[in-house]
């Protein structure tokens, strides 16, 4: 045994182990070390050939690939449909959260969220039909709002749907006030402006102090609309030659022509008080 331990073979082994330890120390945790680079260069060609020859994807027959392609197309269509559903649900959720905030700020409101079912293509003032009717306690003249302000009022109701006349329509007349200058007037649609999603704040006095950028809100006097609902922002002040009065052009905060989700205020404090007193 002693002879074996002193033999040249053992000395060679010890030398090789020493070299291996040195190599280990210098290549351990070193990216692209000379050893792996050398072995990689030596085996690259062979590995490349064998990897290509066993590539399952390349070996699949045409019919199988075609079938797989069809399946993937179907799967893709399903996923696209699901994605659309997801976006719809997400959008609706976001909108309902905004109505939730509106309700929280005005606890006296009874809100009925509704979707736009259809739009009247022949109506230039963007009136539309909602998917809520008298079965959801919606009545004629109920205000229709979004989280950004008034959109219009309910003009016709049946059991499951209702028609809304927007603030772009001349049929609408809402008593309003400029929150900054305290000037009052009537918001009513105008055929000259409705195509640009604009309405007018008319019947202003000659000494009015309405300025661009002022915010117009409801007064709540008529009993049709709650007080302090936002209508929009003044864009310009004009003079009506026929009526000999000033009016302001107002831009609502929502694009009424494209709106899809609104809420109907079916009850609020002071609703119909003037109308009742008028009877």
């Amino acid at each position, binding site marked *: 045994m002693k002879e074996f331990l002193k033999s040249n*073979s053992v000395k060679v*082994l010890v030398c090789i182990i020493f070299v291996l330890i040195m190599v280990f120390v210098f290549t351990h945790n070193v990216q692209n*070390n000379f050893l792996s680079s050398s072995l990689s260069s030596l085996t690259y060609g062979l590995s490349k050939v064998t990897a290509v020859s066993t590539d399952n994807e390349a070996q699949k027959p045409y019919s199988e690939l075609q079938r797989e392609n069809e399946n993937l197309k179907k799967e893709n269509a399903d996923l696209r449909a699901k994605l659309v559903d997801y976006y719809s649900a997400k959008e609706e959720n976001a909108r309902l959260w905004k109505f939730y905030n509106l309700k929280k700020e005005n606890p006296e409101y009874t809100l009925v969220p509704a979707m736009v079912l259809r739009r009247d293509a022949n109506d230039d003032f963007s009136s539309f039909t909602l998917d809520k009717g008298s079965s959801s306690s919606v009545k004629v003249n109920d205000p229709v709002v979004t989280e950004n302000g008034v959109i219009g009022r309910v003009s016709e109701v049946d059991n499951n749907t209702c028609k809304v006349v927007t603030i772009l329509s001349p049929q609408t007349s809402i008593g309003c006030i400029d929150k900054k200058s305290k000037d009052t007037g009537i918001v009513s649609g105008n055929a000259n402006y409705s195509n640009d999603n604009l309405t007018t704040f008319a019947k202003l006095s000659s000494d009015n102090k309405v300025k661009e950028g002022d915010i117009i809100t409801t007064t709540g006097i008529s009993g049709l609309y709650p007080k302090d609902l936002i209508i929009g922002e003044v864009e310009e002040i004009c003079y009506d030659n026929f009526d000999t009065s000033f009016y302001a052009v107002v831009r609502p905060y929502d694009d009424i022509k494209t709106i899809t989700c609104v809420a109907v205020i079916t009850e609020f404090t002071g609703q119909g008080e003037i109308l009742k007193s008028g009877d």
Partner: protein
Amino acid sequence: MGKTNSFFRYLAYAVEIILLFVLETTPNLLPEIFNAKPCFLLALAISISVYEREIPSMIFGLVCGLLLDYSYCGTVGTFTFALTIICFILGYCANNIFSANFWGVILCSFVVISLVLFLQFVFSYLLPIGTNAWLFFRNNYISRIILTFIFAPLFYFLNKFIYSRLSSAGN
């Protein structure tokens, strides 16, 4: 004549090593059985060592270990050290202590395969990772040890054939 035979024998071993390395590392070629693939080169190095002397055994062990480590971690590692030393010892023992009979080699293969793979497990998983390492050993290494051991008799007979053809005529 003896040197020529030795050259062809070593060449045959080298071809075996290359073929088994390709077989082992080609993707999608060998199926995984119980989460593991066999270590052909480990079984081959043992079967070469029982027929060769210390130095050639050690060199083939070193080459097999390097290739195994290269495919596992890209540098010198457990397989290289373990196979270099174990093949050297096996080469010495097979020539001086016991003869290379079937059952002796099978027993020897089982012990060496288990020992080397266990060492690899210790240095690659148990020490650096620790948690769930034994679960990994149970799920992966036991099956790898068994699969590698299954191929040991095959390489034993193959190298016995090569040795008998390329050494007796020359020696």
